[in-house]
């Protein structure tokens, strides 16, 4: 049964009122400049995508042959072109686009726009009013598919706004890994990607989510993410961006509602050219014995500007433990990093919150140490920088590691 239309109408009214509401952070985007693309046909297999699209999808973490994956979702511009569930995992999880999910499940009223408000800013409003799908992934209670679900949100046309609403539900005692790649088919493309993501992790569930962003110099990106984690549930959220972007601003929020819930954010950002990057993570510790951690590794090269934020907010009456670890390296004299940690305790007398933030160059002592083993200066810098960015994220293809090295080689000359 479809979701209640009155509920949807209410959301739309709220969204319309927020259409002029600027975001609190990041440069304002005139979204009226961007239009919608035409519908595209579905493909039978990911192999049927154009060479250019396949290449972009692979670089964003997609496995075209769908090896070591439990399912796949692929969207190009406004069109869902591929949805598939590996037969071995039927009955364990479901994958579809959000539009179909809203048609299928009336109970989505309990989830749709419940992890973040539709009127948060004009970007969330735009997603609701001009929705262009997004994925819906649900893993059934106590199911633990061995391999990750992969999804790719690709922009192929110029001057468009891709407005997706994604939702992941990990039911009680279930576990799920998701790799999402958001990318462009053409590097020159100008446009905007607005991505709302709502994650729900039920009691004892585990969600391991990895997002790889490959944008380009003329592209604006405004992800909006909210996660609600119940008792003993856990979320690990990895974010990797190693390519330039015109501007990106995101500040995902995880609400640790249940006792013993946990959230961990790992963020790896390499700022290139004149990228404007404003990223962070907020963890709200509401349940007792909750744990949160946010680790950010940022490198600012060329003329990039990076804001690395982290907020820990303790609200629990009981014990909670959370830590922010934010480190940055500035590679270029024209680049900037702002590390902005914030710890808040709202009467949480037993909360232990801590942070360490540092910005510094690559230690010359470390470079010389590696050089004394017969390694060239360039290779020593590359090894140290790659190591700095390496957060050991499983299921990320080897090429990402290679990609990091190539980017570093191209930009590290200014580093020392």
């Amino acid at each position: 049964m479809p979701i209640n239309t009155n509920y949807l109408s209410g959301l739309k009214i709220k969204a319309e009122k927020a259409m002029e509401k600027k975001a609190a952070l990041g440069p304002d985007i005139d979204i009226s400049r961007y239009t919608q693309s035409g519908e595209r046909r579905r493909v039978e297999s990911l192999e049927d995508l154009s060479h250019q699209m396949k290449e972009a999808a692979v670089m964003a973490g997609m496995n075209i042959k769908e090896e070591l994956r439990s399912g796949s979702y692929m969207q190009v511009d406004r069109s869902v072109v591929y949805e598939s569930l590996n037969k071995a995992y039927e009955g364990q999880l479901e994958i579809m686009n959000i539009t179909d999910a809203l048609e299928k499940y009336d109970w989505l009223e309990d989830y749709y726009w419940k992890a973040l408000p539709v009127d948060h800013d004009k970007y969330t409003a735009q997603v609701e009013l001009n929705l262009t799908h997004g994925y819906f992934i649900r893993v059934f209670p106590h199911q633990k598919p061995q391999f990750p679900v992969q999804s790719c949100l690709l922009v192929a046309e110029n001057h468009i706004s891709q407005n997706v609403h994604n939702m992941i539900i990990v039911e009680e005692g279930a576990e799920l890994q998701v790799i999402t790649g958001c990318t462009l088919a053409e590097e020159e493309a100008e446009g905007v990607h607005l991505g709302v993501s709502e994650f729900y992790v039920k009691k004892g569930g585990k969600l391991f989510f990895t997002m790889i962003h490959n944008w380009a110099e003329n592209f604006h990106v405004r992800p909006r993410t909210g996660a609600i984690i119940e008792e003993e549930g856990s979320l690990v959220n990895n974010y990797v961006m190693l390519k330039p972007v015109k501007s990106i601003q995101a500040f995902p929020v995880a609400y640790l509602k249940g006792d013993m819930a946990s959230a961990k954010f790992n963020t790896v950002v390499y700022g290139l050219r004149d990228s404007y990057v404003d990223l962070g993570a907020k963890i709200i510790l509401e349940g007792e014995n909750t744990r949160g951690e946010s680790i950010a590794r940022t490198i600012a090269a060329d003329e990039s500007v990076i804001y690395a934020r982290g907020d820990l907010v303790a609200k629990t009456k009981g014990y909670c433990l959370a830590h922010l670890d934010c480190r940055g390296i500035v590679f270029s004299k024209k680049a900037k990093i702002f590390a902005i940690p914030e710890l808040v305790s709202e009467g949480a007398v037993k909360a232990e919150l801590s942070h360490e933030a540092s910005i510094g160059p690559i230690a010359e002592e470390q470079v010389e140490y590696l050089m004394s083993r017969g390694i060239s200066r360039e290779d020593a810098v590359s090894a140290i920088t790659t190591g700095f960015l390496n957060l050991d994220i499983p299921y990320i293809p080897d090429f990402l590691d290679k990609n990091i090295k190539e980017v570093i080689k191209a930009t590290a000359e200014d580093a020392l």
Partner: protein
Amino acid sequence: MQDMLKVQDLWVSVDSRQVLKGVNFSMKFGETHTLFGPNGAGKTSFMMTVMGFPKYRVEQGKIYFKGEDITAKDIHERAQLGLGISFQRPPTVRGVTLRKIIEIISGNGSHEEAISENVKTLNLSGHLDRGLNDGFSGGEMKRSELLQLMVQKPDMVLIDEPESGVDIENIALVGEAINALLGKARVKDPSRGALIITHTGYILDYVNADKGYIIIDGNFVCGGNPRDILSEIKKHGYRRCIECR
């Protein structure tokens, strides 16, 4: 026979402070020499200068390695020519694992069997996936340094206080590793040489040194049998050396 290392009238400063004052030194291929001296005398400065660390500024003099003038060469070039160093206190490099550095030094996986044998012998299997020297104990650092050098296979190795921070039990292991590194476990290898700084002399129980020197206030003041020198230092300290300059 040609000198493996030859240093002529070497004057070196660190942040405008003179640390070496006209050092002359040479050693033949295949020899192992030891260096004694009080704290701050210039032992480590001498090693770091020979290895080419830019903080140690050569104001005057020349350094020749295997007949080639290396005075202007950078650290990496000297290492490529066959010089290696074991640090007294190596820096921590968090993101680079011991496994990774071994892979890079060995050229990505060559001689894997020999490497894994050395890892086992040096009791470092549990450290391969940790950041270099990250939380390593004194002994673990020394063993890690020697493992890296075993893979690097330098013709001449500079070893700064191999026994510092190492418990008695592990000194034998470190000593044997140095011997293996120098190819002297069985028959003397004429192609490998070593210069070892030692404070306590414990390492001399394991490593057969040919000659010893004392360095005082930035200069070599005397040389001779390393065991005799050590015994003299143990009896009288460095007082007599200072007096006899």
